[in-house]
């Protein structure tokens, strides 16, 4: 039986070069587990391709009755990018806050 919660620990610079791998890891976890927690603790920087992956995974999870959550400390670089990109309105420190703040990141509104 699959784990009820699966943690995907991402790290380093998540950019357009690595986005397919990132998407693959999250997809695999979501298919296998009802709840997936993305550990953002070791992510150093992100670009818009990561944002696409995150939202696309969330939409898939919502549509398939699964949960996608964020956890861990959010690096300044990551929060800054999300802020400048207009995805969050103020800087956040941890994954849970980020989940709450991300624009249209809840299943109720995004679908």
């Amino acid at each position, binding site marked *: 039986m699959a784990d009820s919660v699966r943690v995907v620990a991402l790290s380093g610079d998540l950019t357009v070069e690595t*986005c397919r791998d990132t998407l693959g890891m999250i997809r695999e976890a979501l298919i296998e587990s009802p709840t997936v927690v993305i550990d953002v603790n070791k992510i150093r920087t992100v670009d818009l391709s990561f944002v696409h992956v995150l939202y*696309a995974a969330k939409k898939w999870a919502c549509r398939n009755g699964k949960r996608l959550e964020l956890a861990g400390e959010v690096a300044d670089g990551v929060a800054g990018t999300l802020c400048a990109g207009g995805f969050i309105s103020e800087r956040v420190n941890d994954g849970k806050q980020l989940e709450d703040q991300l624009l249209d990141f809840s299943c109720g509104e995004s679908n």
Partner: protein
Amino acid sequence: MIDQFKESFRDEAYELLNSLESSLLELETDPKNEGELSAVFRSMHTIKGSASMFGFQHISRFTHEVETVLDSVRNGTVPVTKQLITLTLAARDHIRFLLDNDEPESAGPESDSLIAQFHELAAPSGSGTIAGQETTPGEQSPDFGGDSGGVVKDAGAASDRESHRGIETTYRVRFSPPRDIYRNGTNPLMLLKEMSELGEFTSVAHVENIPDMDDLDPELCYLSWDIIVTTDKGINEIRDVFMFVDDVAEIRIDVVADIDALLDGVTKKIGEILLERGVVTADALRRAADRQQRLGRILVEDGLDPHELDSALKEQRHVQRVRDRVQNEVAATNVRVSAAKLDELVDLVGEIVTLQARLSQLVEHDTNADLKTVAEGFERATDDLRGSTMSMRMVPIGTTFSKFKRLVRDLSEELGKKVEIVTEGGETELDKTVIDRLNDPLVHIIRNSVGHGIESPEARKTAGKTETGTVRLSATHSGASVVISISDDGAGLSAERIRAKAISRSIITEDAQLTDKELYDLIFAPGFSTAENVTQVSGRGVGMDVVKQAIESLGGSVGVSSEPGIGARITLSIPLTLAIIDGLLVELGTGKYVFPLSAIEECIERTGSDSDARMISNRGELLPVVELRQVFAVNETPPEIEQIVVVRSAENTVGFAVDRVVGEHQTVIKSLGRVFRDLECVSGATILGDGSVALIVDVQRLTNLALQFETARR
């Protein structure tokens, strides 16, 4: 306390009425200028709001009606016409009358008449009446229970204007990059970063088009943005950010708030923002407003994309945040102080200047080094204090200039002439008291220029000129004075007619030999007028005489020049201030006198051989000399070597013989009081460091006296 608030409101309202008048006159020459139209609307709107707050209910009701029509103008349903401008100027005058007279009941019929005219003007056949506010959906914004915020439709023109003024404007940029933007090497985040560097920045991403991961190509971009930025940069600098993608991306830039709107405290209702963005229709908004519930929720229920609502809300918050900041900055940096308090401060500074002079004199022969150091420090501080205080009273003359645009407009209509007024140097500053006292002389001169100087359109055409004449009003600094010039391109002065008139009025004799320049100067003689017909505009024969007296009472001078067929020019030279001046202290016997330093060209010695000469040779020219000893009846024996103070006033240079030049003196001008009010040749007095009094010489009157004396002698 309430009276104080009312006075404060009056002051503010007078300023707003002046701005309103200027904007209306600008709008008349450029009816498509939406910036000026917005300014007209905001002035009226602010007067209405403040009047209501301070209990001026008549003004509030009246301005409300006018504002309603102006709103229709702003929405494009009523055109800007000459009739509208004339009517709004009349409304402006009426508000001024109501303010001046504390809203008399007798003003009611005039208010009703003006309002009726506005309604008539704003009710074209086939469309709804203004009173009923019937509108065509899509043509006019409905009222959603709040004030609209002065939407500037032509973003390019408005933003360039704001940029030139170096003040902030808030823009909305809707940016939709192409899907394959990464593949052409552009990172949208870098564009957003560049935008954030332009000023206060809010961005809202639209994520709704990102598919779920089964359909996602992570190398494509599914995002778009609404970017709100408040910046002092122009629209072109914003366009430059998107320079490399503007042919493949969708980019729309709109102005959402300019600095005037922010200062007025006006922010748009959410309905207006959504309407501007084109995501809801006026009809949908009107229906939603009728349901008396939260607009956003209703609109979403009716099908509005919630992302659009969220983005509009963020724009509204951004503008509110900037508005609060701007208003706080203004409140923190500006304090409104009554002119009376400033006068009081200047008086006190005058006392300090006098005390400082006394202190300096006392320590001059004192051996206490510490005391000398303190006295020197006090002198420097007093000098700075004097400069700062005087600068507080300085106001730009442009505020007075702008009033004359209206004067010229009304006069030219009355006389059937075509006249435009050009103003230059409006930023030139003068003491407020001086500016207030300049108003009447300038009105006289401009009335004469339009009435006598500028010809009728037909006469101008015959003379090979354009039908429209020009009156040019300019101001410029010249040392411690400001030179104001009023020129026109009319027919110029006629020396022959002036001569004939002067003879008929017994101002000169038939055999008097006068140059053209001397004849022109006769227009300043009491009772002189060349007008064939006495009209309301000019020709009463008192104008230029009054002008001369008024300017001389300010310590200034007036001159005239003219070229037949080309035009005439009146030049006023006015001292910067009337309160404290830099003077030159001189002695005559045991008495001390002060000359205004700004009028002095040089000081030269007069040796024994020239001691009785009424004219001396100076730099190759004959210089008339006035014996001040005779003027002031000084009987003590003169020194062997006298000093001549050479003074230039208007276009004459005259020397004044004095015993000794003491040196420069900061002169606090004190009035001589009623007893000595009619004393000629003295414009005031000042207290010296030793407590004695020195008289301030009225250079202009002395010069006139000397020249009259010289003419009579010849």
